[in-house]
């Protein structure tokens, strides 16, 4: 037994950790540069090294990005747009996830004639490029009276997201034994009761997957935001672009970096909070009855 336990100082181990550490560093360098740059003074940026730590730590870049920086003609920072993004993302994520759960439930537990074909066609939705639908979607939103509104953006993202969320939930529910549904039907539960009382409580892992996936997709979207929203209803991705492209003399890299960090933070937070479910949900195969 004594020689089974080997301490980790063997050359192969060191090599493996060395390579992993290097890969990690390469991957993190852009983030590190963004972070340290956002805390530098403009003076520091002009004179110092890109990788050097700030000589004077300052949150000036962050406060300016948040509430003073110019995005086009307005100079109120990204604050308003940050909330715009939330107003768009939260409803879009929740609606598309719930719709996907419901679709998945029907397509796996209440199969009807052609339901597999319908599922197959729905999957096409995952592969349609955004650019293709820009014009027809603009026309549709115009007819619905939703052009340039947050509600319109929510609608676009829900439509695009449903293909993915349905795929997630359908594949998750297929692994849930049919006997559960049968037992519930004999117990007197109807279509909706079975969904809300039996299937949905089982869905936490895949719910988290869907949540993270949709949040990341919708929050990070630029194309729909720049096309279907204007002025006050623009999401933060569009505002960030405007902020970086608005020049008033000297380029304020610290403000740009801070704004970019602000734009990226929510997805990071969502992943950190729900991330453990993400891996679990992706690998979840079956539910023990």
């Amino acid at each position, binding site marked *: 037994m004594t020689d089974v336990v080997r301490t980790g100082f063997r050359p192969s181990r060191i090599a493996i950790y060395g390579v992993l550490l290097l890969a990690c560093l390469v991957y993190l360098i852009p983030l590190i540069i963004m972070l340290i740059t956002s805390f530098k003074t403009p003076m520091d940026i002009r004179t110092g090294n890109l990788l050097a730590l700030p000589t004077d730590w300052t949150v000036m870049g962050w406060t300016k990005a948040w509430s003073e920086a110019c995005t086009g003609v307005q100079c109120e920072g990204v604050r308003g747009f940050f909330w715009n993004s939330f107003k768009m993302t939260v409803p879009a994520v929740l609606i598309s996830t719930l719709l996907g759960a419901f679709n998945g439930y029907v397509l796996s537990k209440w199969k009807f004639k052609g339901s597999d074909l319908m599922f197959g066609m729905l999957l096409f939705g995952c592969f349609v490029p955004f650019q293709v639908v820009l014009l027809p979607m603009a026309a549709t939103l115009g007819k619905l009276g939703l052009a340039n509104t947050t509600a319109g953006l929510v609608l676009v993202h829900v439509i695009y997201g449903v293909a993915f969320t349905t795929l997630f939930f359908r594949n998750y529910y297929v692994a849930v*034994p049919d*006997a*559960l549904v*049968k*037992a*519930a*039907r*004999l*117990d*007197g*539960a*109807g279509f909706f*009761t079975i969904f809300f*009382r*039996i299937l949905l*409580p*089982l869905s936490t892992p895949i719910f988290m997957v869907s949540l993270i996936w949709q949040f990341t997709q919708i929050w990070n979207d630029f194309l729909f935001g720049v096309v279907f929203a204007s002025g006050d209803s623009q999401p933060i991705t569009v505002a960030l672009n405007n902020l970086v492209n608005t020049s008033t003399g000297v380029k304020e890299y610290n403000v740009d970096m801070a704004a970019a960090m602000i734009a990226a933070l929510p997805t990071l937070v969502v992943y950190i909070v729900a991330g453990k479910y993400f891996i679990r949900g992706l690998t979840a195969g079956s*539910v*023990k*009855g």
Partner: protein
Amino acid sequence: MSQLELRDIRKTYAGALDETLKGINIDIASGEFLTLVGPSGCGKSTLMNSIAGLETITGGSIVVDGKDISGMEPKDRDIAMVFQSYALYPTMSVRENIAFGLKIRGMPKEEIRQEVERVADLLQISPLLDKKPSRLSGGQQQRVAMGRALARRPKIYLFDEPLSNLDAKLRVEMRTEIKKLHQRLKTTIVYVTHDQIEAMTLADRIAVLKDGELQQLGTPKEVYDTPENLFVASFMGSPSMSFIDVTVERSDTGLSVTVEGSDGRTLALPVPEYLENWAGNRVVLGIRPEHISQPDEQKRDNMMVEEGRFTVEVTEPTGPDVIAVIRLNGIDVQCRLDAEHPVEWGEDAELMFDMRKVVFFDPQSEKRIRPQ
């Protein structure tokens, strides 16, 4: 407690060429324990799901207490079912599992509490009430599944292979318990299984199914002693009945058939008079292991008992007895001998053939030849 009639039940799955159920007729009396038994694919689960209303039938009617329920939704049929996989709701505690059906039916809270306790007492699962199903062993999950069915006091209970996920020892224990429960509650039960021992031990009556057709319906004793055809005969009993091709011969002493051992020794066995019409023709002799045993003084004088020496090919001790295999007319035939009786493989053994309970089949139609 209710009476159930299955009248000419037919079922064809969409897109399928063959009928899965080809007109099943069974009357189940109030309080009766009926087992549906058959090999996989015989339609027994389809029949059970049809009774529950989980599948629609394409013909016939299902009648409970004189009322046709064929077109009703499962929830309106007042039938409870225990599933092979138990199908306990994983996110609910045992208590919630049992109460779920009651809650949906709008039973008052206090009554639900009493009912859950009654059922838990009955099945001795009271200490488990607040646990989640995943924390329970297979046998405990099985009990909870039964509790869920019992709680609603439905008209009819359906059991779909409820014991096949348990290990051998627990299966026998639960089998006894289900039987006790039935004797105590006197409920109408339809029980599906592919295990013929389960079917024999539990049932008041057994329905043997094959390819969507009812082969035989009768008490366990009827099905075992007088199987209607070769299929039923081979399916019921373990080790199963041996089938020997023989020719009915007439001699001065009566009718007989001759069997030949592996070394060429022959033995004439007496057969009953009802085979008169078959004299000179080939029939299939169906003989169960217990019909061939060691010589017994008390039986020796009986006209229908014969003795002979045959070479034992294999011995299989089971504990209470030894199964010895001999070869007759080129077929392996099992004999059930007393465990104390000395037999060795490769040696001769004196065997007694008791022909009083053997059965004969028509080789063409495979049906049993009935005494006139």
